């Protein structure tokens, strides 16, 4: 139901992306990050994996508990997205390309670097500019990336302690079910 109009609806984002791609600045390469050994990517290219991992680092910065890299949030997002239908896959990949694109960022007041090569402070400013942008396409894109990143991270039992959650009461359930038998 969602995602399909991400880039097409409000701005003609695909056209914008195509125009941006014609300029050398837009072709600056992504800083690559290796997935953990044994993680085979199903949805992302290595560059897309690296963009998501860099974004997750900043979205989830400043808290206790495991880092997004330790949980391989980007790898879990990759597995979650693998069954997406073709139209959704294309839109999400375009979104990531736009998010990383140095020229698009520069046009909107950012530094002349792809997201993965920005400093942490620049990355936070980039995320804030997407979050509260006047352009609906960027606000929507930010929400899509942030929600999925948070969902994957905070649904992981390793993070429960960081939010004061004791986890599901398995023992209570087991004992009651046992007694009922």
């Amino acid at each position, binding site marked *: 139901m969602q995602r399909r109009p991400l880039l097409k609806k409000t701005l003609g984002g695909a056209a914008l992306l195509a125009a941006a791609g014609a300029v050398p600045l837009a072709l600056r390469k992504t800083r690559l990050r290796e997935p953990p050994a044994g993680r085979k990517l199903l949805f992302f290219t290595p560059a897309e994996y690296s963009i998501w991992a860099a974004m997750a680092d900043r979205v989830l910065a*400043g808290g206790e508990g495991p880092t997004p890299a330790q949980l391989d949030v980007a790898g879990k997002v990759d597995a979650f997205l693998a069954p997406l239908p073709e139209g959704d896959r294309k839109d999400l990949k375009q979104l990531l390309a736009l998010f990383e694109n140095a020229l698009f960022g520069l046009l909107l007041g950012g530094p002349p670097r792809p997201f993965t090569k920005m400093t942490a402070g620049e990355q936070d400013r980039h995320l804030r500019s997407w979050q509260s942008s006047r352009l609906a396409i960027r606000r929507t894109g930010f929400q899509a990336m942030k929600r999925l990143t948070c969902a994957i991270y905070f649904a992981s039992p390793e993070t429960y302690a960081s939010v004061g*959650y004791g986890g599901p009461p398995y023992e209570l359930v087991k004992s009651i079910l046992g007694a009922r038998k």
Partner: protein
Amino acid sequence: MIHKGDEIAQDLLLKPDVCIIGSGPGGAMVAQRLARAGARVAVLEEGGFYTKDEFDMQEATAYPRLYQDRGNRASADLSIAVLQGRAVGGGTVVNWTTSYRTPDDVLAFWREREGSLLTPEILRPHFEEIERRLGIEKVDLEDTNANNRSIYQGCKKLGWQVDTVSRNVRGCLRTGYCGMGCPVDAKQTATLTYLPDAVAAGADIYADCRVRKIEWSGSRATAAIGELLHPGTQQATGRTVRVEPRVMVVSGGALNSPALLLRSGVDQGPVGKKTWLHPVVAMGAFYKERVEGFYGAPQSVASHHFSRRGEGAGFFIEAAPVHPMLASIAMPGFGAPLRGRMALLGNVAATLSLMIDGFGEGEEGGTVSLRPDGAPRLDYPFGARHYECFRAGMKAIARLHLANGAREVQSFHLDPVVIRSEADIGGVDAAPMGPNLFAAFTAHQMGGCRMGADPARSVVDPRLRHHFVQNLFVIDGSVFPTGLGVNPMESIYALASWASTHVRDALS
């Protein structure tokens, strides 16, 4: 018998008396009533069939498995997150058990405006039977958790109407995991009640069965065409399904039912129009003491003090469980501010304001159309009526929590409004409102195949038969002409129980 998609090794051709598409409260009820009346019934359900042993109380498992779009359903611009069940038993598997009869004034509105036949007297025996069957009983205040009790206490201090709600449970442990599938079978879902009844009376239920379209000719639906899915991946197994019934019942729920009609070219009348969501805005109240909204019955208190406000849209106030994944999606911001709020999750009371949509003059609600791949697309634009109601709801929630001693109350705007005293409440009016500038949700989807006497204003007639395709019924929340103003599950059951008589008449 219940059949799973990956257990069926050949293409299916079925010729039952009745084919029911969807197994939520509408479809399950019709299946039980018709099977017990001696009809041969086949139920086709896109979601999987799960039992309590598979409910592990983990959000990471439950949402992808038991919710539409693997937990990621949303309006087209992502401004409204859509929580909607997808399993044998439909929304009854994942809802938070709050059970209400349809308000009398809502039924009166439907009769006056749309020619509905429903009266409190007509529905009463159906409600009574459902309440017995599902163990629907009012919660004692001492059985509520602190998250819900904060609403009760705050409203009482302000002199506002508030009460405990009725829940469809038996032997509830109040673990707090209703939304992830009840691990102890306390929640009386359709999967534990009306569907087993239907199976015992000879009905066949096909899980993991996605219906692509309904074939029809002239004024008759001739076949439901679909495919079987692997329960885990939700990818097609390669096996097809063709069901040729005498009567077809569409019970896919709001959003999916209108989408199925649109895919099938059964698009006479306002199919997909006037979709209602009870749009939700939330506030987080931070207390000094632990609230632990993770545990305890997720919803057990509600205030309908503001349900009827005259000019502005009404709203009602309920609690939401505070599990980490769901909370993190709603919490605004990112980085340290987000992590700081999440670190205090155990001290947060999460309270919802649900707008009662559909009663404003000229109110259009949402529209369901089709994406290029045939899946439903929901557009639900907000207008001045929504923003006024959202702000009124946020302010009411802030006031009740301040009255109850909350340290501070925060909105879910991108830049949260932080309220520590009455003087801060005006900040809600100043905060910018627009798509994706604040968190909005829906857990109650209604309309899109509205019932009524006028074919230009409705999709099905007052007996829920399609206006033009005479052996086709739509029986689920999509036929409601407006939002309900209460949680919809029990109303859908009762409507389906009543409408089953008309399906039976169509068979004979």
